């Protein structure tokens, strides 16, 4: 179980680094666009579309990482009001609901991706990006978020407050031992 949690955390971190790199790349691409358009007075073809898709990719792939950091903002009135045990129950219920929603979207976005792949869909711009590439980010992002949520559920017995990131609290020893 612990190995699964570690593997998922590693995956989420890889996603986080990828998302950060996508944002970093967008900065340079837009600066290149500005240089082409305003300094060289040349027309730009691919930049606007690519950075928009990079941003969508960063958002989707960033989701599991932000969940790992507990960065998705929530109204924490009720969790703060509850004592330790009921708070864990509430967390489990919230996570189960979120897993089902993410799974539904992961399923239907995978379908959209397959349609775009089979049909050879392209964006309507001059550049005509194959649409399966940006669409792929959605099943990946929502699917990996489901994995991250299951890992959060597995760690439930070992943390004091599941609504806080793991790095902000001591972990309880596990019965199956650290492997």
């Amino acid at each position, binding site marked *: 179980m612990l190995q699964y949690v570690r593997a998922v955390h590693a995956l989420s971190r890889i996603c986080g680094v990828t998302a950060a790199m996508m944002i970093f790349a967008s900065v340079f691409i837009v600066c290149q666009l500005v240089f082409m358009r305003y300094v060289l007075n040349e027309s730009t073809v691919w930049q606007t579309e690519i*950075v928009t898709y990079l941003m969508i990719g960063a958002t989707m792939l960033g989701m599991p990482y*932000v969940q790992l950091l507990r960065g998705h*903002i929530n109204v924490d009135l009720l969790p703060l009001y509850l004592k330790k045990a009921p708070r864990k129950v509430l967390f489990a*219920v919230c996570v189960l609901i979120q897993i089902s929603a993410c799974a539904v979207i992961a399923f239907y976005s995978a379908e959209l991706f397959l349609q775009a792949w089979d049909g050879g869909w392209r964006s309507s711009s001059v550049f005509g990006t194959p649409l399966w590439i940006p669409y792929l980010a959605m099943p990946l992002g929502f699917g990996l978020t489901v994995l991250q949520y299951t890992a959060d559920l597995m760690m439930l017995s070992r943390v004091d407050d599941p609504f806080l990131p793991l790095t902000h609290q001591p972990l309880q020893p596990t019965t199956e031992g650290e492997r």
Partner: protein
Amino acid sequence: MDPLLLSLFVLIATIAVLFSGISVGFGLIIVSTMFILWQDGVFGLAVIPEVIFGKLDSFALLSIPMFILMGAAVASSRAGSDLYELLSRWLTRVPGGLVVSNLGACALFSAMSGSSPATCAAIGKMGIPEMVKRGYPKGVAAGSIAAGGTLGILIPPSVTMIVYGISTETSIGRLFIAGILPGLMLTCLFMAWAIYSTWRQTEGVVVSSIKYTLKERLELMPKIVPFLLIIVFVLWALYGGVATPSEAAAVGALACVVLAIVVYKMWKPTVLWHVFRDCTKESVMIMVIIGASGLFSFMLSSLYITQSLAQWIIDMQLNPWMLMLMINIFLLGAGFFLPPVAVILMAAPILLPIIVEAGFDPYWFAVVLTINMEIGLITPPVGLNLFVINGIAPDIKLQTILWGSLPYVGCMVLAIVLLCLFPGIATWLPTFLMGPAV
């Protein structure tokens, strides 16, 4: 079912889901999915990914991660404490100078970082201990920083304004310019209250006896001025219509990162990673809420809720100011619990047609809405800034911070009243610089 009754159900479901502790973004997706399922059955679900993708598929949205990166680079550097030091050296002879310079530093830093909690943390870390040391009451010290931090979402460039611009299809450059004078007015109101409360509580104005030479006053300038020049350049590019917000923000972000590396020697990969991690964390959080709110508005309009609600309010033929009062109370209530971005994304598309129909200016409304959101940042139960201050100054009780901040809520309400009496405070500068709104 009657759309108005249905809207009541949606409201109850949204409140129940959001208050359970589920994150705002996923909460909106869950509520929307439930009602789409109820309306169209399983076949309706297939449209969800397309709606979310369609909402995020916009070049204008890219300005959000870019401005956040710009702010993250500034916030991770020592620019906050340098700015604080610079202003306190210049304003040392002004009566109550330290609290005034703190508020000034908050206003400037909020322009540089675009974030309220980051402003509180950056200025408060230096400012609060210094003020307490020099004899300012703890409540005044903590309250002024908590309030000063809220300026971050009003003074441009502000991510909150960008989100408003995108969700209502108004000009982001114009929104930024509209925020300048109200931001300055609010800063002055805050300063006036800070001086008055210090004078009242200490029975005499705290005047510093420390003197600084001109050299000491000037030596920090080269570190701070380049950051301010970047902000001025970005605003100039925006209001002059030279570049789109995303283009201006990307150039600004690159310039801020390079400046942070050069001026503050932040070249170590771990330090840079922290900047990018913070930027990614905040951008993803906001973008997920934006995508989710796209789905939420899609659900609302496919159930005819948006249209019916707007028609219903218009049919009531309320006095426009009565309507504005009700909207303000609603926004204030929502702002008590929800982050500004979420309130704007959910409420602005529904409220804007009603506002415009009643004869109000959408840019003026953006300012009023933002000040309402600022109030939510320093009021319980979820006043973010209060908790930031509590984190950086653990020896000041939360209660003291709260009581110190409350009078500033009064200043903000006064600012809203002034804006209602003199709408020109928000609309004059954009009209003067950019011509009348189309």
